[in-house]
């Protein structure tokens, strides 16, 4: 159905561009693959333009784009499930292309970060995305709940479970070298 004129102002493009790096990051955490992540971002942008009247101008565009991306991803995954198209995030030695870790990190060693991202990659996608949104994007739990259309209690329990799994994975602490395979 064509939209009536006047109800679909353009999305603010500078804000869209500014949101792109974060959309790509979210997409990588969801898909675990650089190329598929960018495909997902592209599909998300197309969907966002198509559905732009659903964005309330003046509200947080980034959060709305996360919602759109989450929905596009969930729909695509439902289709792909037919083909048992499973995402493997921890197959490669360094966690695959998506989990490239920059050589220069601020505080932790490259090995520690690789280990961490592998643990993150093994989390169920539901927990992984909540962890990203809460910890890395630093979103309020209430905003995550509305972004993912789940109750706040679910956000918090997924986050707790994700953290508990990370803790268990780093059984003897992330800072202790004994848990790491040091490769020369």
């Amino acid at each position, binding site marked *: 159905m*064509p*939209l009536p*004129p*006047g109800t*679909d*102002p*353009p*999305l*603010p*493009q*500078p*804000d*869209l*561009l*500014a949101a*792109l*790096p*974060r959309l*790509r*990051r979210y997409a*990588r955490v969801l898909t675990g693959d650089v190329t598929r992540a*960018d495909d997902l971002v*592209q599909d998300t*942008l*197309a969907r966002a*333009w*198509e559905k732009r009247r659903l964005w309330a*101008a*003046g509200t947080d565009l980034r959060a709305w784009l996360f919602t759109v991306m989450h929905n596009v991803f969930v729909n695509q995954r439902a289709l792909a499930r037919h083909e048992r198209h499973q995402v493997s995030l921890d197959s490669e030695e360094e966690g695959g292309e998506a989990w490239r*870790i*920059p050589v220069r*990190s*601020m*505080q*932790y060693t490259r090995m*520690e*970060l690789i280990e*961490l*991202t592998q643990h*993150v990659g093994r989390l169920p996608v539901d927990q992984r995305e909540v*962890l*990203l949104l*809460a*910890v*890395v994007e*630093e979103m*309020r*739990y209430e905003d995550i709940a509305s972004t993912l259309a789940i109750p706040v209690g679910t956000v*918090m*329990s997924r*986050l*707790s479970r994700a*953290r*508990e799994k*990370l*803790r268990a994975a*780093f059984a003897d*602490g*992330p*800072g202790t070298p004994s848990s790491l395979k040091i490769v020369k």
Partner: protein
Amino acid sequence: MNPLPITDTDVSAYVDGQLPAARLSSFEEALANDAALAARVTQLRQHNAMLHDAFDPWLAEPLPDRLIAAASAPEGPAASASAPKRAPRWMLPTAAAAATLVVGIGIGWFGRDALLQRDGTPTTFARQAALTHALYASDVNRPVEIWAAEEKRLVNWLSKRLGFAVRAPDLNTLGFALVGGRLVAGNEMPAALFVYENADKQRMTLQVRRQAHPGGETAFRYAFEDGVGVYYWIEDNCSYALSGNLDRAQLLAIGRVVYGQLAAPEAAPAR
């Protein structure tokens, strides 16, 4: 009244700074008396810091062209059918081209300014500078309209379009060579953008524009917007913004050189 027992959810909320105020004091009391709880908090904070370290650098990666293009309004029957009816008269001639990047940005800036005005955000210029930097500095093949090989033509053209004499500071001593420049949309008037690059292919941009409303001078101010550091200042009714994915100290050092060169016009090579 006995406080409620501390749950995993409380610990999570505490390290995320999202524990409700009503729970905060009883949590902190428990924290002071429970070494195991304190260790758990420390560990979660460490995980938080590691997650940032692991995932934040992705934000600085250059954007692929196809995604930049996808951020523009799509061409199509729906867009072209409704856009002209809604567009103000002055915009009509460009409506057909609304899907192209440059025009799209122009329209976007207007929407953005309305937002900024309403929200009263004071960092308009720094934010714009960061966005402009992110957009053009990441463009490997065409970051500029006129390349440094034609610096004189570039400077003359920009000076003419801006209505005052601009020049590109010489940052070769700092390892940054001029790549070129372009005209970019500002709030109310256009701005000049100079792009520099070092041997590591790191890019830095300097944006210069006349202030729409003459106002005082400012000290160097720093802003960090979406992964881009920006030093900006106002002098002689011109606003300057130096943007780059460089560390703050490095950016400041470059800013001082730029400032020094621009503040000493008599020292500029005669053109």
